[in-house]
């Protein structure tokens, strides 16, 4: 113990803040707190980014290839499935493989985002119980983590495109607003599923099975054009298909139809609405549930 005074003056002052909690059953008051939560989460985007990045780093800490394992395993899967299914469906590998690589990577993003959304708040239990943080921060962290995984997998798509020389051209720009829609939907998904799953622990397995069924009944590994007649008319009612298609079609060099966009936007609006209602209602109880 040489000189306590050396440490006596902490150099950094925390910004003074105000915390006022008044149980107020009015909807407006709860909505106000939920809005504050969202703003707070967005203001802490750098923290969300770092947390998401640390998640990936931790998963691969000590491994030689690190996050490149993500790329490698996706690459192998795309190669194997592509060869198999192009034989099964009697399709030209040159046509099919770019489609499959893109579909699998994008679907992988969607399905891991949804399953992470279920554990969004439970996983952050330690943080939630030790410091007051906006709950939306944990949702943003899940999105960052999944976007980073997607970033690693994009390499596979690029390689396949380069090998088959199938670049999508200028239509690809249409994928940008579609990806923005995905981020918004992802946030809604985390807030909704995260809250519901924190309360009801039986929901995650149900969500898991729904995603698995959706994978097979939606045109992910098979092309939507393969569906003929009346069945094809139902396609726009499949939110998994239309949400996938708004990003996938532009990246394959085609503009998605208005029906697809309308459906994707409609289902997104429903999802966001449901997420907002649920979040406004249960936000104050989440700390007790995790």
């Amino acid at each position, binding site marked *: 113990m040489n000189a306590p005074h050396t*440490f*006596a003056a902490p150099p950094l*002052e925390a910004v003074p803040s105000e915390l006022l909690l008044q*149980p107020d059953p009015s909807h407006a008051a709860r909505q106000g707190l939920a809005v504050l939560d969202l703003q707070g989460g967005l203001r*802490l985007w750098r923290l969300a980014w770092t947390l998401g990045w640390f998640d990936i780093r931790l998963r691969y800490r000590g491994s030689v290839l690190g996050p490149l394992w993500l790329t490698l395993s996706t690459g192998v899967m795309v190669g194997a499935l592509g060869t198999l299914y192009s034989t099964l469906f009697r399709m030209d590998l040159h046509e099919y493989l770019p489609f499959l690589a893109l579909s699998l990577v994008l679907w992988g993003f969607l399905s891991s985002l949804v399953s992470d959304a279920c554990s969004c708040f439970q996983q952050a239990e330690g*943080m939630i119980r030790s*410091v007051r943080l906006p709950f939306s921060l944990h949702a943003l962290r899940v999105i960052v983590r999944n976007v980073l995984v997607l970033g690693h997998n994009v390499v596979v798509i690029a390689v396949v495109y380069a090998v088959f020389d199938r670049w999508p051209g200028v239509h690809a720009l249409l994928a940008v607003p579609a990806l923005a829609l995905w981020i918004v939907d992802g946030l809604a998904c985390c807030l909704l599923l995260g809250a519901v799953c924190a309360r009801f622990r039986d929901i995650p397995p149900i969500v898991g099975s729904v995603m698995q069924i959706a994978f097979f009944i939606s045109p992910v590994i098979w092309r939507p054009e393969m569906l003929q007649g009346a069945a094809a008319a139902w396609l726009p009612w499949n939110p998994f298909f239309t949400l996938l298609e708004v990003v996938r079609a532009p990246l394959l060099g085609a503009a998605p139809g208005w029906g697809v966009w309308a459906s994707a936007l409609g289902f997104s609006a429903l999802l966001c609405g449901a997420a907002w209602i649920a979040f406004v209602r249960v936000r104050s109880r989440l700390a007790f549930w995790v």
Partner: protein
Amino acid sequence: MATIQIEGVHVSFPIYHATSRSLKRTVLAAASGAARGGRLQEDSKHRVVVQALRDVSFTLGNGDRLGLVGGNGAGKTTLLRTLAGIYEPVVGRLQVSGAIGALLDPNLGMNPELTGRENIALRGLYNGMARPAIRRLEEDVQDFAELAEFMDLPVRFYSSGMVVRLGFALATAIRPQVLLMDEWFLAGDAAFMDKARARLEDMVRGADILVLSSHNAAVIEEWSTRVIWLEGGRIMADGAPADVLHQYLGGPGVGGPGVGGPGVVGEHAAGDAGPEVTDAGGPGLEAPGLERPGLDGAAGPETGGASVGGTAAA
């Protein structure tokens, strides 16, 4: 200028995961009935409810150092978490002016898989700091916590003393106006305690608020200017340290940790906790249900039935 105002605050926990969170457990619970015993009660929706804080009110201003005493489960940690804004009260009002620093558990938001340096960076980001400020924070914490070469090892390899030092250094490096502290920090060694004291005293001198909870009367007496004795989530006494500690140590509630556990609705609070705890909002999350008179009686025969069934099956 830091203040804490807390008025008539109730906090209650619905304990879902212990009993009926999952469908499967609900089914199992039907079979086991009230075999769990009388401490926890189920409400009409088969939820177990614990009243953790009941009608807690006090006001703190600049320079106050509040000590919280009480047995295990008296509500000390819940009160600290409520003051930190983590648990939002079901009933009552809480206003805290000033940046809050909370040392509630040794890991306090630290990820044990991440290195000390990474945890420090996260804390800096949480406080909205830019890169140069985070570097300063890192240096300060590193010096204070004497981590040296351990800075780049995951926190789970740290000794418990190192974790405490890191946690304390982090919570006080970014100087809060209101410091909420659970007793774990006493795990530090003597040399560290001297350092911690110097830092804390400086903080409190700077007209800030300290709220400290402990089982240990000596610690409370040394650190506090005011003491609140909690038992069963209620304030039993509030006043000068000597007076309250005298009551606490000599009163009927003594007998060491474990006395007076959490106030369980139905155990000794059915009547008074009832009417106030209403409407936290919405189906499935409104305030914890209240004990139904006769629930015990109703559950009895069920248990009997189940065990008879079991016997028959056997």
